[in-house]
């Protein structure tokens, strides 16, 4: 079981060493984007993989976080260490509202209503010019003052550090959630809602918990994005972001903690690599997505666990009731 934990530790330790070895700004930028997308994909995975409902509204939380950080820092002068948590908290509040309204629905209805919420948020960002500056977006989100003297490379390294901390926090919280009673209850709801209800699990409590946790994490990622890119526009609510996140989760393998990391790594590198192909880039990307759905239906991690199941090892998502002992293992 703890293979997953060991892999996570190994990957994060490896990632922590990278800036000591690599001094190339371009590589660091790619690595930062990988971290950013890994946070997003992991937070989406909490809903898609552990609640089993397909949310297309995750950009609502990302965008809320990004706008919160941008507005707080440009208009109220909040520093970075305060805006990112504030972004997470506000996104979590939005998560409570959206979750309360949408989690009663399942299947295609949930998919489309969450998409509607993201679109509503985008239209608000586009039209409420007083607050969000409309389609022009908010430019010049301030960087911490000490980065001005430190130079570009140091700035990249600084953001690399923040992104690493954010991802570590995401993985820690996800791990704690997944391996808690609440996480197991959520999995029970995912596997069979009616059986879960019959043994006294209230689906809404646990699906809500997962959704709000996901919203908190992606809101913080949004706050980070606002400072790193230093520009926020209505594009953060665009479906393109959502498509990237979904593709990462499903390619990596939903319902595993390692899957979204691998997905974020693969997709970000694939997108960068395909830059060589210029205009053909997105066409090839579309074909790659189709190919992965057809040939790797459970994602890369699903493929791996399938192999392990076949060779007689237990699956990591086994729902063996073990309520007390494993609470402390994290």
């Amino acid at each position, binding site marked *: 079981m703890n293979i997953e934990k060991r892999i996570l530790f190994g990957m994060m330790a490896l990632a922590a060493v990278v800036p000591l070895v690599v001094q190339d700004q371009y590589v660091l930028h790619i690595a930062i984007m990988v971290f950013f997308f890994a946070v997003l994909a992991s937070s989406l995975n909490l809903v898609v993989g552990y609640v089993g409902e397909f949310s297309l509204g995750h950009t609502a939380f990302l965008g809320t976080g990004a706008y919160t950080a941008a507005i707080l820092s440009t208009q109220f002068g909040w520093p970075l260490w305060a805006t990112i948590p504030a972004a997470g908290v506000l996104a979590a509040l939005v998560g409570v509202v959206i979750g309360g309204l949408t989690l009663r629905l399942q299947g295609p209805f949930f998919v*489309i209503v969450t998409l509607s*919420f993201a679109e509503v948020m985008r239209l608000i960002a586009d039209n409420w010019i007083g607050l969000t500056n409309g389609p022009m977006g908010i430019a010049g989100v301030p960087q911490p003052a000490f980065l001005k003297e430190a130079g570009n490379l140091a700035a990249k390294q600084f953001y690399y550090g923040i992104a690493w901390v954010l991802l570590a926090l995401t993985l820690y919280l996800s791990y704690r959630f997944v391996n808690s009673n609440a996480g197991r209850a959520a999995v029970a709801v995912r596997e069979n809602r009616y059986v879960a209800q019959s043994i006294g699990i209230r689906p809404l409590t646990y699906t809500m918990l997962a959704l709000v946790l996901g919203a908190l994490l992606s809101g913080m990622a949004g706050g980070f994005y606002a400072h790193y890119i230093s520009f926020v526009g209505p594009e953060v609510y665009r479906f393109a972001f959502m498509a990237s996140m979904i593709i990462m989760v499903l390619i990596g393998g939903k319902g595993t903690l390692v899957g979204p990391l691998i997905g974020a790594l693969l997709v970000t590198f694939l997108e960068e690599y395909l830059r060589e192909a210029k205009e053909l880039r997105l*066409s090839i990307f579309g074909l790659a*997505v189709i190919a992965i759905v057809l040939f790797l239906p459970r994602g890369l991690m699903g493929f791996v666990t399938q192999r392990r199941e076949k060779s007689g090892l237990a699956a990591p998502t086994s729902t063996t009731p073990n309520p007390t002992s494993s609470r402390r293992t994290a």
Partner: protein
Amino acid sequence: MELFLQYLANGLVTGTFYALSALGLTLILGLMRVVNFAHGELYMLGGVMGWWATTRLGLDFFSGLVLVAVVMGAFGWLVDRFLIERIRDQGEEPGILLTIGLSIFLANTALLVVGTAPLKVEAPLSAAPLILGPVVVTKLRIFAVALSAVLIVAAWLVIQKTRLGRAMRATFQDPMAARLVGVRTANVYAATFAMGTVIASLAGMLLGSIYSAQVAIGGLVSIKAFVVVILGGMGSFAGAIAGGLLLGVVEALWGGYVATGWVDIIGFAMVILTLLCRPYGLFSKRAERA
């Protein structure tokens, strides 16, 4: 008050177009349970192909319409048999991911081939205005509404009166039982997807003659069509029409009396309200099943 009638007329015209655009989606979503994110791209392909047939091949509008229907029907059939077939009965996610991949591929390939410029499909009529009492509509729009109505009725007849339609309805009710009584469900699914594709592409061509066909329009069309489908109830034929008309009229009235900037938000607000009050759509009889 005079303006009210004008707004209502505009809304009904747009609503008919919405209904036609959403019809293919509701068939696919209701019958096959595939949330088809490539729907807007199929619509777009219809428009682009219509432009190509009427301006480059020099066909007249109706021959172009037939050509588009045949080509896109075959395309839809092949997409189902080669792609969707393989992920059937695996829940929603693979279908969503597959159609997102397909839509990315179609939109960007079309962009490579024809570019971003708006493409005007040659219309069969002039755009001269027609004055009916207090209401002004162009001839072309009346023609488009009439043609939409014909297409909708034709689709309804196929579903209600033909052998294929009966097989489709049986599969919709219970795929297993339909298989047991000898319906070849694989063919029915492929035919449904082809039919949805044909309707979407014809809508794209028809509206390409009024507005213009654009490569980047797909996402917007998909989202509007989802709104209509949810308002009407998944898989409900009458629901798609009522939902389309409702959306068109409410948008026109809102745009006329309140604010034009926020028009697009209305559809989503209606979807959210609908799902809260009547979660399975305004006209759906479908109930939750374990």
